[in-house]
């Protein structure tokens, strides 16, 4: 059996296992064959099949667990730790939980982005998984209010001045630009009105470059993600973790060539994903445009293309 056939068979087994154990049987082999038919030659197909076997998928179960992790490990732990330090490192359950409850009562959780985007719908699951009261969740327009009902009065106040913690939750921090926008438009205002407010941004996933930029240039007190994608997750970078030991005849160079060839047809601006992120990541609710467009492109224009992990938001021009 030659390398091609051997690798093809092995990749099929891997994808079957991925589909069964992680991708929630979302993909069956006929879907893969249809997707591979986007590519012209067998050599191109084997390169792309390998890329597919490296695709990371996070389903509903996983996303809910990540939302639990944000609450428990990012938000809650910091407060608990501070309480303990303030109280001589006590481990007394009642003391700590009592103080924590007070801090929680002074917290509001918000989503990031357009209401129709994923950031805000995540809040619903966040609330469910962490068994939190509805009253802890607000929209961004509810942070501030006019001091008086008189529409000519321009003075802005905090709607709930006792609130100490504003926690913004997002699914993916890409370039960091949206975080900077929020910082300029919202965080600076909060800080102006209440300098000791603690404003945090927590994402499930982030590009390392984006989150570093956000940490450096934004006014958020905390900017963190559960999972960061550094350059090793850019699939064609020199540090790519996907190509550490690719099976013959797969190589980084050939795979990149194929991805570029078709990516250029699909999204000439960013043939390897938005901002050249070159990711191989998808979620239950969507595939981010930082992922290679050959994976998700579904626009019915001049270029006919069948995706393997469709993207629902078509606003990527």
């Amino acid at each position, binding site marked *: 059996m030659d390398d091609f056939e051997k690798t093809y068979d092995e990749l099929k087994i891997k994808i079957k296992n991925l589909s069964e154990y992680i991708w929630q*049987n979302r993909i*069956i*082999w006929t879907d893969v064959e249809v997707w591979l038919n986007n590519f012209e030659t067998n050599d191109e197909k084997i390169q792309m099949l390998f890329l597919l076997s490296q695709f990371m998928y996070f389903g509903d179960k996983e996303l809910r667990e990540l939302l639990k992790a944000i609450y428990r490990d990012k938000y809650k732990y910091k407060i608990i730790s501070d309480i303990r330090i303030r109280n001589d490192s006590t481990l007394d359950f009642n003391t700590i939980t009592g103080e924590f409850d007070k801090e929680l009562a002074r917290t509001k959780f918000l989503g990031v982005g357009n209401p129709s985007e994923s950031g805000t719908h995540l809040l619903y699951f966040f609330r469910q998984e962490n068994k939190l009261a509805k009253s802890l969740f607000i929209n961004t327009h509810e942070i501030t209010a006019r001091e008086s009902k008189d529409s000519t009065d321009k003075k802005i106040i905090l709607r709930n001045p006792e609130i100490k913690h504003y926690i913004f939750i997002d699914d993916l921090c890409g370039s960091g630009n949206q975080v900077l926008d929020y910082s300029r438009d919202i965080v600076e205002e909060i800080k102006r009105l209440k300098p000791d407010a603690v404003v945090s941004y927590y994402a499930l996933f982030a590009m390392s470059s984006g989150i570093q930029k956000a940490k450096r240039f934004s006014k958020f007190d905390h900017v963190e993600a559960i999972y960061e994608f550094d350059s090793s997750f850019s699939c064609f970078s020199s540090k790519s973790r996907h190509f550490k030991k690719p099976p013959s005849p797969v190589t980084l160079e050939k795979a990149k060539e194929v991805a570029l060839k078709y990516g250029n047809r699909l999204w000439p601006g960013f043939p390897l994903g938005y901002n050249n992120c070159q990711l191989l990541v998808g979620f239950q609710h969507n595939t981010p445009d930082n992922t290679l467009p050959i994976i998700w492109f579904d626009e019915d224009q001049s270029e006919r293309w069948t995706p393997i992990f469709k993207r629902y938001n078509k606003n990527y021009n």
Partner: protein
Amino acid sequence: MDNSTRNPFTIVKANDFTDQEILDYWVDIPGDSGFHHLVDPLTPMPMIIMGGKGSGKTHLMRYFSYPLQKVKHPENILKGIEKDKFIGIYLKCGGLNSGRFTEKNIDEEIWKNFFPYYFDIWMAQLILDTVIEALSYNDNSIDEEKICTEILDCFDDTLSESPKTLLELSSTIKQIQKQLDMAVNNCIFTRSLDGVQILATPGKLFYGIPRVLSKNIKEFNDILFVYLIDELENLHEYQQVYIQSLMRDIKLPCSIKIGVRTYGMKTYKTMADNEENREGSEFSILRLDKKLREKNRATNYKQFAVDLGLSRLRESGKISDKITSQSEFFDYFEEEKTINELDNIPEISSGISGKTIAKLKSALNKHEQSNIKNGVSKPSQTTEIINLLSFEGMPLLEKAATYSFYKEWSKSKKLLESAISINTICNNFIADKDSQPQFKELISKFKSDLLAQLRKDNAKKDSYAGIETLIKISKGFPRSFLTLLKHIYQYSAFNGETPFHSKKISIKSQIEGVKQSSLWYFEDTRIAGKDGAQIKSSIEKLAELYRINRYSDKPSECSLTTFSGDLTKASKETQRIIGLASDWSMLLVDPDGRKDKNSSRVDSKFILNPMLSPHWGLPISVRGVINFNEKTLNAIFDPAHESDYKSIKSEFENSRNAPFNKSLDVPTDFIQGAFKL
């Protein structure tokens, strides 16, 4: 669709069979009176039940245990026990966690004194808890205080507590166990077991408690207390010595049945110096593996396996209830079309431009010197040979023709004359198959191997499809059959088919499922204890030789996955590894063995478990047998002789491939009508 929640063959838990299913298997097989035929619980002589992985040993033992007696006698368990004339006290040795009773800077002699007491305390609780449960259905009153007093007399010393009821007694003994556990669990730090008091002589509780119960409880007056001690292989050697002593000193109203892996018996010695228990004298042995593979079980197993598959489908509830009969079940699996000798086979080349002839041509061109010796000195003669052996559109016939030719070549016959003769035979065969009975028989015997070669030469996958094939692959192990179905179902669904609905499960899906099952089965050798790696390596060598044979120019044996040999001449390590491989069902022992041609000796015969065959593209049907001498056996199985393997493999290959350098060590051995399923 979440495939796996709908896969009716998914294994629900590790212990995947209900006891009822295994009961049905043993009871319903025609001509067999089931469990009682194999194991008579009322025989006082102790019995050792030996079986490998998947032999049903644990299920057999559980069949006689109290929980299953309760299921069999739901109306009145005490009456049921009286009727059965026994009560089964079942113990899994693994539950003792007796790996902790070693070393920790404690002298071995101390452990040897400690373990029997701990074991008896453990069993005492087991018996008491079982009896307390049974007596909870009792209407008659019993004198519990008297029973407690008599049981306490079994101890050498007075206990600090004076329990008056069986429940209190059980609790008291539990406290003793707790103290023993604490002492053992801390001895790594305390470096001693000095605080431990051994309050009973070995065996006194073990035999004494049943005697007291028998005497004082009406329903137990005439019954046997059958100790079912399973997984003995989990005990250390010195611990097994104690169990052997209990067997040796067996006293009524008790009997013992031991369940152990074939190579899990570490000793037959007893605590009395130098006394060893012997088969037939202190115990009998039941070897389950042999029983499983007796010939008359073959048709019965097929029936059972398909019924099992059908019942799983019905149980899953998500699959159509339409399938009710065996033949309908069969119909859902696409079968390979039967290939006859003169058929054209799609995607398999033949004729001058085909792969078979290309290989022949290459061999003839490569071995010119050999050819000259065999009378071929001109290229035109080579061309003539090739033309004589080409049969366009009849790839199987062509393969058989070239096989015959290679056979003649290996005997140093004149090549051109041989080709002419074979060509005549083939043409006669084409006209009338019965006119060439030897050639017809040859094709029949080697058909599977020749087809496998054709597929390989034409870059086609090995074929393992159809229910009959799956039955053969699983060879008497219901669990293997379900595993095959599970993986096939997964692939079928993954390939976009709708298994057990409208379309047949494709051959492709079946092959993929079978290959995966085979690989996983082989991977399991790694977990076969500390010898796992050696067993795996040996099986790989064996399979490699079988594969060389199958895909060679001239396979010396057809459908070869069986070897025989005089094990007594092989090294101890070889014998041990072969034994372990059998224990783990990688090799299956043919109970009949093989009679040596030149003497009255009967050699052992071992079949590679057909579950492993697909991983290496080996045959499923068992026909040919190869005899290995001790050198070959040691090279395959004994790491100390591993360095010999390379040359043996080389000889093996050379004797089967043009130009057929002679090998003295590996005789051609073609057995007609060898062991078949």
